[in-house]
């Protein structure tokens, strides 16, 4: 009886020059000029290679990429509802398991990758993602985080930072900070309750070699894995589209985003700055934070300071006022 296994080992790379030249996310898609999520998609597809199936829950990376009966995916790709990326991936992985076992399909178990936005991962898609991880399917769930429902015109999501101006959290005299709630922590959500998951990491478009290596490691590790990828959105965050990588880098330099790996219970940091810049540096380059006052910024700095103590440590956040809206 054939057993569905991956014998492949995707090897790590050391430098930018060693990044594979083949593209599996090809030019010709309707994503924004300077799109962070598109950039991470390109890198993920390169890292994973041809033996890959992408599942694309609804979001920018569905609608903008597959606009009007054409797609940029050189490997098999399937649309999923925004609700069910994890479940569709489960079905595909299970199908390959049984089809290989029964001799109905010959070849290696493919890399099954869900490419979900923040909403499709930790908001409406959370249930399906969690179940995929609980059941132990051999699939990689990627949350490309542009910190809003960008496809529908920039509405707040559970990862939109405190103080973010979105079309559902506009600042106004009654709610001067715009978004009042502090964000969910997706990797901690995964680590916290899914014993089948042995590898979780955060990544950023600012560090492509690190990102590629994390994708490869996640695909080499058997069972479900999770990557949380910071993907700045020039439209939603309102910065010049040439600054996507610069903004991503600033997030790491200010501690707004932390690069780490979690493997079998151990945390390891990557590209950790020796000294963090003030959060203000990050906020001031994005117009979504233009309305914030000194008091708001101080609140945000306190949140980041607490968070930087260590991943996984619960952050004491200022309790939002009782009538807080998302």
């Amino acid at each position, binding site marked *: 009886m054939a057993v569905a296994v991956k014998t492949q080992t995707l090897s790590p790379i050391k430098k930018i020059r060693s990044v594979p030249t083949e593209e599996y996310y090809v*030019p010709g898609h309707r994503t924004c000029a*300077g799109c962070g999520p598109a950039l991470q998609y390109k890198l993920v597809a390169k890292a994973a290679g041809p033996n890959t199936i992408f599942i694309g829950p609804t979001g920018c990376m569905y609608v903008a990429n597959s606009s009007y009966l054409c797609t940029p995916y050189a490997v098999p790709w399937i649309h999923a509802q925004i609700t069910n990326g994890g479940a569709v991936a489960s079905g595909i992985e299970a199908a390959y398991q049984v089809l290989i076992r029964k001799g109905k399909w010959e070849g290696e178990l493919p890399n099954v990758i869900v490419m979900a936005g923040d909403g499709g991962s930790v908001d409406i898609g959370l249930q399906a993602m969690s179940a995929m991880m609980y059941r132990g399917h051999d699939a990689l769930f990627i949350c490309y985080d542009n910190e809003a429902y960008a496809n529908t015109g920039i509405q707040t999501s559970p990862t939109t930072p405190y103080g973010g101006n979105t079309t559902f959290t506009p600042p106004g005299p009654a709610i001067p900070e715009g978004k009042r709630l502090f964000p969910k922590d997706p990797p901690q959500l995964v680590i916290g309750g899914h014993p089948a998951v042995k590898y979780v990491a955060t990544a950023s478009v600012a560090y492509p070699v690190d990102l590629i290596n994390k994708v490869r490691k996640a695909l080499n590790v058997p069972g479900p894995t999770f990557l949380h990828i910071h993907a700045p959105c020039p439209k939603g965050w309102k910065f010049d589209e040439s600054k996507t*990588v610069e903004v991503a880098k600033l997030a790491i330099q200010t501690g707004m985003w932390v690069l780490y790996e979690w493997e079998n219970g151990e945390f390891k940091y990557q590209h950790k700055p020796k000294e963090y810049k003030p959060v203000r540096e990050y906020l001031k380059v994005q117009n979504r934070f233009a309305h914030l006052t000194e008091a708001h910024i101080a609140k945000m700095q306190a949140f980041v300071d607490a968070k930087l103590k260590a991943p996984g440590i619960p952050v004491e956040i200022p309790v939002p006022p009782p009538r807080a809206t998302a």
Partner: protein
Amino acid sequence: MFDIPKEREVPFAGVTPAPVGEQPMMITGNWRTYRPVIDHEKCNLCMNCVIFCPDACWQLNEAEEEVVWNSKYCKGCLICVNECTTAALTKTYELDFEDGVVRLEKLF
């Protein structure tokens, strides 16, 4: 059978073939207001433009040892100009060039 004009046919169940190399049905070179222009003399092949382009519009030509720009798809975001380590890339207004015309009859 329904009478579906040839030009309006849609593949069965909307399943479409995967593109090879580029997606010819979504040409994006007409998105640019500015284009990156390279001075190969200054380029040290740091590869930042290649790695950071969301649209894969910079590729390394190994034989020629130089990076090559794809005018047909470049949307003009200029991340490459911003991330260029040697100032080999400069932002230049698209109307200064006669080439790079992608005249689509219809959008999409």
